[in-house]
């Protein structure tokens, strides 16, 4: 009996020939990630562990200032400083301060810190993003992260795997985000709890690295422990451009055992929208747009859709046009590198010229932290990953989740709009 991709990686990192779902293992980690919020709590825990003066390996920890930075207030500044002081004290090689990084999950792959076959744990639930590269990556809380800082190991329960098979071609203006929203709608927000999601099929073979990132990022929205793609020539080329370290490309066995196989037909898929207040409340754009849903804010960015490829799509739609009146459009390039690339390509000027505000890279708006918080009775359409009550600010606000193209089309009309219809109308 063979093993799934997740089982292969977990077996190798726990020094075993094979592992099975439900088994508890101790696994060596290749990288431990934290941001200033999860690090602040983790550092406090680590200080309380007797005999734990140093991290296990200062080159295998990444600390990224991204949630409440540039500091929203004195309290946020305190947390940012706490992590920075710790990074200096522990000689952390991969510390990314404001202006040198951006959103953690955008930064780490860019910097060559993620490679196929690796095992990464992070103090952020969207750590599962790195599954895009054929790595096992999962989010944990701060106490687990403190233990990983010190031991370089974590205990894990081997998850059973759900195989998702996507067949067909993405239609015009239909993107990886639409695929993943459809998937979360199909599985439900607890449909993959305690499970690994393994992405397969001709559709995902054709996806760009960014598209795979978007999909792996939202595995947690179905409750999954991790979401993983097989590394292919595209993955290897991306990684080799950024790092010279060795890595092992693993693959699921042909006779691997899956708990479930779900097939999704892509050919007829239209753009999708997750309506308030759960990421699995997913409907096709034609249904949602028919209700004439006005919005107060459009947000473009995040670890789901804050990449250069996403900004190019948005700029193409907004080029030479103006956003609707009585609307604000906030764009956060995902990292300093994405910001600079967008600047070089003229994208930032295009977006600002259309009436968008371009913010500094960061997580603030997505989780209702700062720089784009919604007020009572406001409604937003956003490229982010969650729309729970109060997620982007007021518990009396509403958040709709969609692709960058759908958000850009909605920016031009001020209501939730099918980008294909807008294009036909020549707006």
């Amino acid at each position, binding site marked *: 009996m063979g093993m799934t991709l997740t089982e292969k990686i977990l077996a190798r990192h726990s020094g075993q020939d094979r592992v099975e779902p439900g088994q508890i293992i101790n696994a060596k980690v290749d990288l431990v990630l934290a941001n200033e919020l999860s690090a602040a709590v983790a550092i406090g825990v680590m200080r309380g562990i007797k005999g734990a003066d140093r991290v296990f390996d200062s080159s295998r920890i990444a600390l990224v200032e991204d949630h*409440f930075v540039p500091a929203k207030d004195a309290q946020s500044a305190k947390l940012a400083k706490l992590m920075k002081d710790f990074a200096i004290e522990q000689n952390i090689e991969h510390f990314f301060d404001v202006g040198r990084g951006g959103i953690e999950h955008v930064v780490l792959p860019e910097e060559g810190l993620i490679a196929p076959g690796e095992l990464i744990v992070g103090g*952020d639930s969207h750590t599962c993003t790195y599954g895009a590269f054929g790595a096992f990556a999962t989010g944990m809380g*701060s106490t*687990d992260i403190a233990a990983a800082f010190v031991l370089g190991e974590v205990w894990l329960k081997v998850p059973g795997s759900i195989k998702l098979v996507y067949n067909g071609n993405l239609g015009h203006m239909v993107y990886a985000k639409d695929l993943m929203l459809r998937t979360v709608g199909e599985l439900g927000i*607890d449909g993959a709890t305690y499970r690994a999601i393994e992405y397969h099929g001709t559709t995902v073979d054709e996806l760009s690295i960014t598209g795979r990132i978007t999909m792996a990022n939202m595995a947690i929205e179905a409750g999954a422990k991790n979401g993983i793609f097989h590394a292919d020539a595209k993955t290897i080329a991306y990684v080799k451009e950024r790092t010279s370290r060795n890595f092992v490309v693993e693959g699921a066995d042909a006779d691997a055992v899956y708990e479930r196989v779900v097939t999704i037909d892509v050919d007829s898929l239209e753009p999708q929208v997750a309506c308030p207040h759960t990421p699995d409340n997913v409907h096709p754009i034609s249904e949602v747009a028919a209700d004439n849903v006005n919005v107060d804010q459009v947000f473009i960015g995040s670890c789901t859709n804050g990449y250069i490829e996403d900004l190019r799509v948005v700029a193409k739609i907004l080029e030479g046009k103006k956003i609707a009146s009585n609307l604000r459009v906030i764009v956060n390039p995902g990292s300093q590198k994405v910001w600079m690339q967008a600047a070089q390509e003229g994208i930032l000027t295009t977006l600002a010229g259309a009436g968008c505000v371009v913010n500094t890279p960061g997580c603030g708006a997505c*989780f209702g932290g700062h720089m784009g918080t919604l007020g009572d009775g406001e409604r937003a359409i956003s490229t982010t990953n969650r729309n729970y*009550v109060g997620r982007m600010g007021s518990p009396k606000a509403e958040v709709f989740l969609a692709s960058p193209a759908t958000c850009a089309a909605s920016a031009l009309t001020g209501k939730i709009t099918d980008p294909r219809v807008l294009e036909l109308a020549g707006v």
Partner: protein
Amino acid sequence: MEDSMRGKAHKYGKNVDTDVIIPGKYCNIIDPVELGKHALEGLDPEYTAKMKTGDIIVADTNFGCGSSREVAPIAIKGSGTSAVIAKSFARIFYRNALNIGLPIFESEAAVDGIANGDEIEVRPATGTIVNHTKGEQYQAAEFPPFMRSLIDAGGLVPYVEKRLAQAKG
């Protein structure tokens, strides 16, 4: 952890997510008592005003879904809530609750049997849940052996200390 805790049940639905347990804007707070003042604010702004120390949250499936923020169980504990009973828990919340010492109980029968306001007693060592209002008793799912050993050892921190001591010989 105390042998038993007793308080009133505050009953909620399914998918109580971390954004309503502790809204993002409070995630720059570390102090448990300060966090506790905002526990469940996104779901029930009256919760901290109406609850008394020792009270118990009772919820349906997938409690704690969403973010990995450890301040979610810390806020619940910091509010004086003694335990959470749910039909099921989201994965990261489950680990976090165990790691910070917030007692959690998984039991469909308890959630179905308990009404809002019932007087409930829970015993973490045995997983026993007693409904004093209705005169019923329920049994929570047992923790897997590895997690039981972590809990019995006093949590993850003593476990890490033991591992470090072993490594240093």
